[in-house]
């Protein structure tokens, strides 16, 4: 007995759907066992020379049960949060919490912009602190409530888990099963979320807070002092930098929606990297990007040792060397992305 190519894909999608409903611990092992038992069943039902098409395989999978029913058998009955509350808890963790955290971060950014960048470090620290507190608060409170309901009020929503399974058993469709994504095309939600968060922060920094925050900072006599060092030649590049960051945000959003990398997103990524490389090369050729006025700094209260340190840095031409280093790093990244694009195209052609 053999599986046709499409049947094989269908089986993988079914097993992935089961796997996603299993507890983290031991899920790969359980899936390996379900697969082995299922293949034994097929071998018993079909002759060795037969090839199973999608219709036959779907029929066999229906006999096995919906992914939810199969996974439910492997979940232990002594979970802290009972299956009758799983759906609501998942909604709170995956939808409500990110929305509230995003709102808190947005409010923090808004207050930072409106305050004109006063005490920026503390504002940013406070903003992330608040977001963390809110996330832990919501998830923790929900977890405690559902644990109490599971332990002491088991009758609440008691039939819901079973009802849900029965409904799924009746209505599950092969077309609804998750798509199996090849390992190199997989994207991780946390990676995208980090990219989006830092992308927004970078954009806000360059568009609204650059003049207040970009420069050399020094703590002396009980307060932070800042000497602006970026020249007009550097500031002329800020729109280009902002466009690059914006494109990165768009790319993250596209991957978030598609939940995978594709040829399109890979080309998009390469375009952004090429633009970053061109930008860095243009910065290298742009002349003086940083200038430090020691007299003004002394007037502002910068201690002499700080001024000497900054002047030494600038004398050693560290900006130029930093940009050369960036060109090398971006070039390597660009080449690796091109290689991944070719590999992905070959995989898809197969």
């Amino acid at each position, binding site marked *: 007995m053999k599986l046709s190519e499409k049947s094989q894909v269908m089986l993988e999608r079914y097993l992935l759907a089961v796997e996603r409903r299993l507890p983290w611990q031991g899920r790969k092992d*359980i899936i*390996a*066992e*379900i697969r*082995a*038992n299922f*293949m*034994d*069943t097929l071998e*018993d039902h079909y002759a060795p020379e037969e090839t199973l098409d999608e219709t036959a395989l779907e029929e066999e999978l229906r006999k*096995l*049960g919906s992914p939810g*029913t*199969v996974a439910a*058998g*492997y979940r*232990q009955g002594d979970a802290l949060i009972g299956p009758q509350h799983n759906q609501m808890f998942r909604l709170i963790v995956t939808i409500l919490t990110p929305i509230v955290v995003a709102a808190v971060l947005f409010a923090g950014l808004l207050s930072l912009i409106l305050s004109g960048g006063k005490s920026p470090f503390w504002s940013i620290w406070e903003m992330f602190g608040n977001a963390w507190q809110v996330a832990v608060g919501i998830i923790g409170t929900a977890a405690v409530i559902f644990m109490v309901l599971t332990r002491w009020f088991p009758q609440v929503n008691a039939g819901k888990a079973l009802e849900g399974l029965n409904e799924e058993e009746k209505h599950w469709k092969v077309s609804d099963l998750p798509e199996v994504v090849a390992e190199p095309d997989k994207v991780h939600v946390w990676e995208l979320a980090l990219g989006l968060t830092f992308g927004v922060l970078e954009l806000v920094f360059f568009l609204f807070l650059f003049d207040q925050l970009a420069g050399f900072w020094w703590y002396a006599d009980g307060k932070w002092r800042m000497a602006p060092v970026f020249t007009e030649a550097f500031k002329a590049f800020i729109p280009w930098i902002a466009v690059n960051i914006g494109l990165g945000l768009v790319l993250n959003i596209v991957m978030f929606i598609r939940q995978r990398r594709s040829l399109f997103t890979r080309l998009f990524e390469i375009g952004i990297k090429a633009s970053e490389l061109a930008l860095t090369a243009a910065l290298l050729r742009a002349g003086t990007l940083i200038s430090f006025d020691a007299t003004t700094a002394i007037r502002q209260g910068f201690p002499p040792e700080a001024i000497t340190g900054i002047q030494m840095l600038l004398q050693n031409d560290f900006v130029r060397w930093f940009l050369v280093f960036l060109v090398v790093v971006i070039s390597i990244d660009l080449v690796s992305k091109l290689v991944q694009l070719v590999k992905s195209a070959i995989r898809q052609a197969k």
Partner: protein
Amino acid sequence: MIEPEVISEHVERLSAELRRGLIVLVVMSQLEQKEYGYSLLKQLEEKGFQVTQDTLYPLMRRLETQGYLKSDWELDDARPRRYYQLNELGLAVLEALRRDWMEQLVIIKEIVK
């Protein structure tokens, strides 16, 4: 007069409940020799004991978690298979369960005859 279909529907449901109560004993009694999931399913089917895959396979894992079975993946067959067998504790528990069941059976027979 109660329709025979209605009676058989009730009997089927109650009989399934009875089988559910006995399934642990039945499965353990077949695992003195090592078996993998599908082989055990077929064996029970051949002996006339109906059990579904989604009940049997997770039960074998549960019995292992509870410490009555040992299991191993074997790679010698056409594909890897996970074999289960009673361990020392499992064998002792099965022996006691078997004795208990035989005693219960005598009592139940007496009651329901």
